[in-house]
């Protein structure tokens, strides 16, 4: 009887419970990004594309399905970006993402970069030799040529994080989680940066050729490949950053040695007291 009542009491006092979280995200409205830049054909190597979306929202821009930049629209919802153009079709899409991760994108804007035919008649052979010399017999197949003035060489000078380190295969050691890479190159050069063969930045140098970008560093070796290209000419530099762990204070040895000292003192005290007691009892006897 006692056992039955006791078990019943236990059951009555043991309801099953389960906690649930009710969660609601109120999401920023997302206006589909609309390019104000029209589809066009150009011979330029860069173009500024603009559009509108919700205000102060993250806008991701892709070129031919490859992500090239993430920017934030201004308070009126406008965004714009200078992009480099590859020869042929450059299809740009923009995706706006709100605080709930809801994304919205529109039909792409397509900018086609054409290569202007050489001013010479296609039938006129181009002689691949210095004009002051006797024409060579070898004919070169007529080709297209970019209208942009083609530089002989693209300069690329990396000037960060400390001083100029403009030669290849530099190795720097840091404990920082990122490095702000600054440099100079050809005006409007297309700068691509890869870290351990993974592309981490894609930008256009300013009109004065300067560029700067924050590059996250992973632990260990970070081989940064910086390529500057303009009008089909490119140059590459490689920097190696070795990211070490930040030094952390080591308390373990100190703590252990402190504990050993205190422990030894206590044991010594006990032994000392015991000896004194023994000594006293001997003297009593």
């Amino acid at each position, binding site marked *: 009887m*006692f*056992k*039955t*009542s006791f*078990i*019943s009491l236990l*059951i*009555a006092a043991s*309801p*099953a*419970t*389960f*906690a*649930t*979280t*009710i*969660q*609601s*995200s*109120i*999401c*920023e*409205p*997302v206006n589909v990004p609309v390019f104000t830049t029209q589809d066009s054909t150009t011979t330029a190597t860069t173009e500024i594309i603009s559009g509108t979306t919700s205000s102060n929202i993250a806008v991701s821009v892709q070129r031919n399905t490859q992500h090239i930049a993430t920017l934030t629209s201004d308070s009126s919802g406008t965004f714009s970006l200078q992009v480099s153009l590859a020869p042929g079709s450059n299809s740009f899409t923009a995706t706006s993402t*709100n*605080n*709930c991760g*809801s994304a919205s994108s529109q039909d792409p804007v397509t900018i086609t970069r054409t290569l202007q035919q050489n001013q010479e008649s296609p039938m006129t052979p181009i002689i691949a030799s210095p004009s002051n010399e006797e024409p060579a017999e070898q004919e070169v197949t007529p080709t297209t040529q970019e209208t942009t003035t083609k530089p002989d060489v693209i300069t690329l000078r990396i000037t960060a994080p400390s001083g100029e380190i403009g030669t290849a295969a530099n190795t720097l050691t840091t404990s920082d989680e990122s490095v702000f890479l600054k440099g100079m190159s050809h005006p409007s050069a297309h700068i691509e940066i890869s870290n351990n063969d993974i592309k981490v930045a894609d930008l256009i140098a300013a009109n004065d050729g300067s560029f700067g970008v924050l590059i996250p560093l992973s632990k260990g070796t970070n081989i940064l490949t910086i390529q500057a290209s303009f009008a089909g000419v490119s140059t590459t530099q490689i920097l190696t950053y070795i990211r070490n762990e930040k030094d952390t204070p080591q308390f373990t040895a100190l703590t252990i040695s402190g504990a050993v000292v205190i422990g030894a003192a206590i044991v010594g005290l006990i032994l000392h007291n015991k000896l004194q007691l023994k000594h006293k009892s001997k003297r009593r006897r």
Partner: protein
Amino acid sequence: MKQYTRHLLVLAILALSLLAPAISSAIPGDYGAGSYGACTYNTCGITVSSDSVVNMNVTPGSSTTCTTQKDSVVVTTDSPTGYSLSMKSNTSSSNLVGSSAAFIPPVSGTQASPTTLSANTWGYRVDSLGGFGGGPTTASNNAAPSAATFAAVPTSVQSAASLASTSAAANPGVTTPVWFSICANTATPADTYSTAITFTAVVN
């Protein structure tokens, strides 16, 4: 010293003689059978579980926008007298609380007299319970306000809302769909708002 040991021995024998009936009734042979109130041996365990998190994301449009989602509450018991399921908030308020000072209050309706959701309120409903009506309620995202009625989840200092009461064993478990809905407009700042509630199941 010997006297002390002798006293201890006498006390031990006395204690054993008093405990003997209880010990003999608790030998292994007694387990595996028998009735204990409304339960037979090993039949009165009860468990309750649900989906743990109910997410209701709302992207307000030009007018009030609502999202409705379900939490499936499962109670399992072998009790032949069934179980009772109830629900209340873990806090003294039933507001959905955001990361800042903003919050979303519950609808004013009760289980007996539920109401439709107005802008920037939330609530629960169980089809065919109390004054909720039959439904059936369906999940929806960013929809226009519906005619379905909802009630406020009781606070921790109020009586729990009874969601189900049965009179038969529930094994396999019996599911009670509890619907939660929120309506919002652009007056509510974009943020994540939440609260915790507890489902309680007891054998009848």
